[in-house]
Each structure stands twice: as structure tokens, then as C-alpha cells.
């Protein structure tokens, strides 16, 4: 699903060049659940943004679903992203002016899904995260855990091949955090590839593989042997 070779990202201002990623080689198979860990500023989120086609690399190759997407324009990246990649953010990033239902429906609108199918999918996604009863509420009327469950529903509603989660439990208490992680695990078990950035070792244990980044480079990979073996078998 994901292949990177010497993936680099540098941010330049007039005076300073900051290297966020200094050449990352990575391979993630379909159906994997991979955690990315590392200290603040090591490039975790930058990597996630590149993998999610939200940003473009300065150098290197990124193959997504066997297509080289490194040099695509913004419009082309938006087109690839649409329906193929779901996002879960630490700060939920729901649109305040839209109800729960409308927030979840949003990816389907950009895909041009017809209303009937859209309704079925949104209901199914909400049911999956157990938020059907809150479908008419606005984000500010929900708890943090509930908002993140809605964000997960939004991430899965278009049946993406890949879900990118950026510290999904960072703003949640442990109970809600566990609920969200269980949801992600269920999704992975159902076949969705998940790449998650986290600071939490407990959360990382949900994944089969953990990649450690330091100063923009992959410094180690841990495999939870049993999980990994089960996956690669």
C-alpha cells in the first residue's frame, strides 16, 4: 500500500532551513496497523501529512497504492485523497457549523455519492461508532470522546483503504481513549490499513508494528511478533 524511498521534507524561510524528514524508507502492507512514535519535533506529523497527501515531499519517492504520487499537483492529490484516505486528528477537527450527521456525510459529498447511498453509509458509520442517537447534535454539544468517535465515523464513511490517525487519543481521557483505540482496532481487523502517530506506548500496543523516528529518520522498528506474524502469514 505504502512505499517510500528516501522521503525528505524541509521547510525553508528566507534565513533558515528546517529539515523535518531526512530520508525515510518505509513499506506498509495492506491491512497493517502501524504506529509512529518519537519525541516532539522528530517529524511524525510531517510523515503523516506526506502519507496523507496533505503535503508534498521535498525529495524522495512516495508510492501510494502502487502509484508514484510524489510530484502530484494539489488538485491531483485532492483527487487521490478523496475516498481513499481517512483522517483522525488529535483535535477532532469537526466543522462547528455542521451537525454530527453532516460532518460524517462530508467526504461522501466530495465523492459525489448519491443521497440514498450516502444516507445508508452515514447511518452505518454512525452506528459503528455508536453515535446514531447524536446525529442531529452540533460538535460543541458533544464530549471530547464523542467528538472523536464522530471523527472516526467521518474517517471510515467512504470506506478508505487507509486511515491516518494523528494522536487520536491525545485530547481524551483514558476511558474515551480506550474506546477510540478499540474502534481503530476493529476497523483494522475489518481490513483497513491504519497508520497512527502517538506518544502513548499503550496506544502503540494496539498496532502490530511501531516505527520510531528521531531527527527525521527511522531509527528502529518494533514488531509485536504474534500480531505481525498473524498479519504477514
Amino acid at each position: 500500500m505504502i512505499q517510500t524511498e528516501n522521503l525528505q521534507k524541509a521547510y525553508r524561510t528566507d534565513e533558515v532551513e528546517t529539515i523535518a524528514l531526512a530520508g525515510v524508507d518505509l513499506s506498509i502492507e495492506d491491512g497493517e496497523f502501524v504506529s509512529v512514535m518519537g519525541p516532539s519535533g522528530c517529524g511524525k506529523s510531517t510523515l503523516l501529512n506526506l502519507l496523507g497527501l496533505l503535503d508534498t515531499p521535498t525529495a524522495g519517492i512516495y508510492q501510494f497504492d502502487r502509484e508514484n504520487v510524489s510530484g502530484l499537483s494539489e488538485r491531483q492529490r485532492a483527487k487521490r485523497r478523496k475516498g481513499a484516505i481517512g483522517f483522525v486528528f488529535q483535535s477532532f477537527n469537526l466543522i462547528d457549523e455542521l451537525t454530527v450527521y453532516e460532518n460524517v456525510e462530508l467526504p461522501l459529498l466530495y465523492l459525489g455519492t448519491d443521497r440514498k447511498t450516502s444516507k445508508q453509509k452515514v447511518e452505518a458509520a454512525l452506528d459503528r461508532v455508536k453515535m446514531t442517537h447524536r446525529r442531529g447534535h452540533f460538535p460543541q454539544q458533544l464530549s471530547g470522546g464523542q467528538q472523536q468517535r464522530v471523527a472516526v465515523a467521518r474517517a471510515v464513511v467512504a470506506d478508505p483503504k487507509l486511515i491516518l490517525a494523528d494522536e487520536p487519543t491525545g485530547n481524551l481521557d483514558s476511558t474515551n481513549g480506550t474506546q477510540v483505540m478499540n474502534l481503530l482496532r476493529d476497523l483494522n481487523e475489518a481490513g483497513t490499513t491504519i497508520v497512527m502517530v502517538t506518544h502513548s506506548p499503550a496506544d502503540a500496543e494496539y498496532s502490530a508494528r511501531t516505527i520510531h523516528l528521531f531527527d527525521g529518520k527511522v531509527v528502529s522498528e518494533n514488531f509485536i511478533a504474534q500480531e505481525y506474524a498473524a498479519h504477514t502469514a
Partner: protein
Amino acid sequence: MLRNYLTVAFRTLRNQPVYTGINTLGLSVGMAACLLIALYVGHEWSFDRFHQDADRIARIVETRTTPDGAERVAGTAGPVAPTAVQEVPGVAAATRIAQLFRVTVERGDTRFYVGDYLIAEPSFFDVFDFPLAQGDPQAVLREPGTVVLTHATAQRYFGDENPIGQTMSIEGYGEATVTAVLAPLPAASHLQFSMLLPFETVAQQVPWWTRLTEDWASGFRSFATYAKLEDGATHTAMAEQVATLMARNTPADAMPSAVTLQPLTDIHLHSVGIQGGFNAQPGNATYVLILGLLALFILGLACINYMNLATARAADRQREVGVRKALGAHRGQLIGRFVGEAVLLCGMALLIGALLARGALPAFNALAGTSLSLSPLMQPAVIVALVVGVVVVGALAGAYPAFVLARFRPAAVLKASQGATEGGSVWLRRGLVVTQFGVSIALIAATLVVTQQLGYIQSKELGFDEEHLVAVDINSDDVRRAKTAMKTEMRRHPAVQRVSISSRIPGDWKDIPEVEVMTPSTQPGEASSAYFMSVDADFRTTFDIALQDGRFFEPARGTDTTAVVLNETAVQAFGLTDPVGTTVRVPQENQDGTSEVLTWRVIGTVEDFHFQPLYAPIRPLVLGHQNNPVAEVDYFTARVDAGQVTAALDHLQAVSERFDPARPFEYSFVDARMAEAYQADRAVGRVVGAASGLAILIACVGLFGLAAFTAERRRKEMGIRKALGATSASIVALLSADLLKLVGIAFVVATPLAYGGMQQWLASFAYRVDLGAGLFMLAGGAALLIALLTVSTQALRAARTDPAVTLRSE
């Protein structure tokens, strides 16, 4: 997707009441001002367009070169129209209209006084589309002793009776039978009249009429001549041909220097400076343009508010942009979404603006001196135009913020720890604030200049005392014959202090006759032109005009009938060093076609007085004896006791009706008549004043929004500053300084522009105020003060907030 965008746009507007309020208020007020001014501009522009072939109809305007410069006259010699139809290919039809003295119309025991009839020929209906409500257009205006009435006149004279076939007696023109009634005249017509008298009727009753209609050499430009051109014929080419035709027939000394065809649709707005002709309610294209620009300025200011606030608030929207982009939205879709929000807001503003306009229409009518209604806005084409307008304004206001918002990179704005940033160029936003305040300052300065100039005119010494003077019109030869007896009667009441008889009075600006004056030293062909008024011996004392040299007319001196008195300017213009006792000669063309040279003796000179509006410098004036062949008397002027005005008017009316029972008593106050000359300027002054008020209001509302936003965004900074020991005053100064600097820049930019513009306006007055720096400082100071009050309220709020609160919330 559209539903989604509309839903979000609507909820965003609902959830941000202050932001929505500021924008809606500004845009609504802007829209209301635009609607009202559009109504006015539309009305002015629509004049004479109801004629089916309006674009092919033109009026002949002659230009003559005089020693005082070029003079344009919308009048021609009589034969131009009929000859042009016969001899100029390309002229499909032509007609001429004229008017002689005012008349009294008698029907049974009822008498009406009519000053607005036209003498017309059958071709009137070939050129113009004034539909007949009754009668046959092919048959009317052909027979002597007939008359065509307008709908309003028919109602007035005959009420519910059928007017066709009825007769009435028209003073000077005899009995006339009504053969047709016109449908109600459109208000937007430069021709407004009560009835049409055929040429044939006049020819039968006025001995010299036929000769006048046939005389190429006549100096009287008595006929307004209109031509309808063939399809494809250009005005310029036709004007050349008409000029050639005239040159072929007109004696060289009577030929104008140029002939132009003035499009019919230009007559209402573009006849400033054109003498003669008919133009019932002349407009002024410059003022229409100024008002149109004002409307656009006001709307532009409201759009700037939207752009400023929307980009300043961009930080609040960046998360939405990031999410939508992450979910697959591309820039075009996001631009559409934000422009859509602006269009929605503009739509709301239009609805509120329309209600505001409805409420403000009476005030606007009073302000602009108009009587407009909202009905033109209900026409389908106008509604479509308004919808298009809303989309255009929304797109203009929303485009920049939309581009700014849609440019956000999702990777940069979705990160939780990422600080929110303001969108767009700060410099552009500052530039927009400078523009707003620049326009406001310029408008305030313009209002001050107009007010000052009109005040100056009002208070300027005119060279005579214009107050407490009542002018009574002389409307018949009967009264002229009895004028001395009437004058004696008028003076009998103690409330009437003095009475004078004259041909013209200050305030009656139009058609003051001009004469060519030759002094003993004048070389042939170098005569000077001067205005001429016939006056009696009491004219000087009644108007309180200062005698400079010699004496004024004296009733006892019979020889004064061939005497004249000159004003100072005439003495200078004629090159006279010792005027009293000298003689002047004046060639005179009589209406019967004969001519003579009159020789007059100068018996005295008077100090200059303003007998024309202050647009023009004082011109040479010859005051002739009341019994002279150049100009017959038209007015009694009475100086009345300020405390007994009503009693004086009652007495004047009683005397007038005793001597002339057939005609209604017509009077006016001289000072009020003079003020009428500045009516258009006053109306524009009032509208500019209102517009500058609106402009500053909208600019301040925007500034308030920006100040509130800045204060909100810098809360943490202010908290830290306070924690470190900053005083509230220093924080207010810090927050206000930036925005006030912009007002300062606006002042520097706007002042020279306003100065240039106002100099140009003032140039139309011969007597004007000096544009001092003080006036512009006042405008800038006012803008600064208002801006300071606006900004400091918000800054003060931020400064008073407890730092513990702001720092904790971070």
C-alpha cells in the same frame, strides 16, 4: 454540495452575530443608498426615452460667438424645420414648437391662467410619441380655432364632461374647439405642457406670426426645432447638412458659427449652458454622475468591511478549510463556498436594504428635492438586475477572502498545536482601511466646502437689499397700461414702503434681453453687449441700490424716456471715463421686421449689484426708462414692512384683482426666487452630506469590527503586558495607534484629491470661498476623532480585562 455550503454559510452567519451584524448593517445601508440613488439616476436617465424613436430624434442647437464667448441657443429661425424635411435627405420628419405670451383661458365663468402651452404643427405627432386618449392624430393641429389638451388640463377644465367639441376662449388667440386630448404626459419628458395650439390658430390671430415662421433672417430664435432622422443617418452628418441648408438661406450676419444636433435623450441632462428652447425640469449630468459615484463609494466601503473582517477572521475558518481539503475538496470548491457565503450575506443585505430604502424614501425625496417612488424596482428586469447585482457585489466582496482562505495548506492548519494565523496580506487590509477613511475624509471635506460656499452665497452682499421684497407679476397689457395707477394704489397701504416697476428683477434670471451698445468712440463692428432692464424712477430706492455718479430716473423729467443708467461694469466695458452726459446707441430689431438705432443719454451710474446668480461675474447692465421699445415691464416690486407681510400681501392682491379681475394674483419673494437658483447645488450638498455621514458610519462600523477583532486576538499579549506592569492607558494607546495611523495616511492621501475636486466645483461660481487648510484639517480631525472613539472603546475593554483571566484562558 450546494445545500451543504448554504447550510454552513447560514449557520456561520447565525453563530457570529457581531460579525454578521457589522457586515449586514454596512452592506444593507450601502444597498439602501444604492437603491435610492439608482432610482434617482434611473429617473434622470429615463427622460424622453418613452418615444419609440428616441434615439433618432434630435434638437437643433445653434452656437453663436459673442464678445463674452460662445453662446448656445436651442432655437432656430422659423423655416428651418419645414425646409430641412424637403431638402435634407436623412431627415424623416421635423417639427418646431414655440411659445408666446402667457394667456388666460376662459370657459364659461371660470378662468384659468396658462403659461405652459405650446404652439405646434401637425408634424409634432410625426416626431414625438405623445399618444392621444381622444381624437385623431392625423387631423389635429391642422385647423385654426382648435386646441389639443393634455389629460390633466382636460380634467381641470371639463371635469367628467367629454371635452371633445367643447369650446373655450383663449386670450389673444380667440375661440378654440377641443379636437383631441392627450394621454397623461410621462413625468420623464423634457416637454411638459398644458395644451397645444396649432400654428394656424396663432397665424389667424397674431399679425406678425406668419412672417416670423418664414423669416430666415430673424434674430429671434423663437422656434425649438426637432428632427427625426432616417435609420442610419448620423447626428453629425445631419448637423452638417442642416448647417449647409441654413447657410444657403440665412444672411451671413444672421448665421450662427456652428449647428449641432442634440440627441433628444440628452436634452434633460446635458443642456446646462444652452439658452432658450423648452426643458421643463432641467437636470445636470455632472450631479447624476456624482450621485452615482457616491452610491458606488458607499457600497464599496461596505464591501471593504466585508473583505477586511473576513480575512481578519480567516484564522477562525482555517480548520474548516483544512478539514474540507483533507476530505477531498479542491480550491475551486472552497472558493465557491466562501464566495457563496458572501453572496448569501449580500442577498440578506439587499432585502434589509430594500426595506431601509422604503423607509428612507420620503427623507431622500425631501433631501434631493425629488418625488420618486419604489415602483421601478418591482419590474421583472430590475429584479433580475438586482439579483445579478447581489451576485456581483457578493463575488467582489467575497473573492479576496475566499482566495485567502482557500490557499491555506491543510497540513499547516490541522495540527492542534498550530497557532491560528490571520489570513491575507496585512498590507492589503491596511490599504483597504486607508481607502475607506480616505473616501470618508474626502466626503466630509466636500460637505464642508459645499455648506461653506452656499452659506457664503447666502450671506454675500449683493449690492441691493433682497429681503422683504415682494414681486408681483404683470400678466396683461391691461395692467401695463394701468401700471402707474396701480403702483399708486399699491403704495397706499402703510405696510407697503416702496413700489417699483421693472422688466426684470434679480431672481428672474432667464431671458434678460441683451443689447449691442455703441459709444461715441466705438469702432464699427466693435459694439459691446450688455444686459438691459426697463425700470422706473423708484427702482433704485426700492431695491436699495447705491448711486455712484449722476442721478437716477426722475418722474418729473419727461426727457428721461431716452435716458439710461449704467452699472459700474458697463462703464468699464464700454471704456467710458466720464459716462454721465455721454450718449450710447443701440440697434434695435422690431418684431414686425423693421429695425432702428436708438440713441440714449447716460444720466447716471449705479454701483454693481448681482442681478444674476453668483455663478457668473457681474456683467454690463443698462437700465433703461420703463417706457422704451426694448423690453416691456413685467413686474411690480414692493418693499414691505417686515412686521406686516401678510397685510401687505393682502393689499397687493386686492389692488391687483381690482385692476385685473380676470387673472389670478401671482407673487413671489425676491430672496426666495434667488435661492431657487442654487436649489440643485443645495440638493446635491444635502445628498453629499448624507452620503458622507453614511460613509463614515460604514467605515467606523468596519473599524469597530477590526478593533474588536484585534483586541480579541491580542488578549494574551495584553495580559502578559499587564502582568509585566503596563497601564491601561498604554494598552489603549498601543491598540489604537496602528489603526489611527491608517486614518492619518488616509488624510494625507485624500486631502489633495478632495482639494482638486472641490476647486473644480467651486470654479463654477464666479464668487467663491477660499479653500483654506483649516477646512481639510477639520475633515481629517473629525474622521480621526470618530475613529478614535470607535477604536478606543474596544481597546479600553481589552485593557481593563484582568490579566489573570486572559492568561488562564490560554
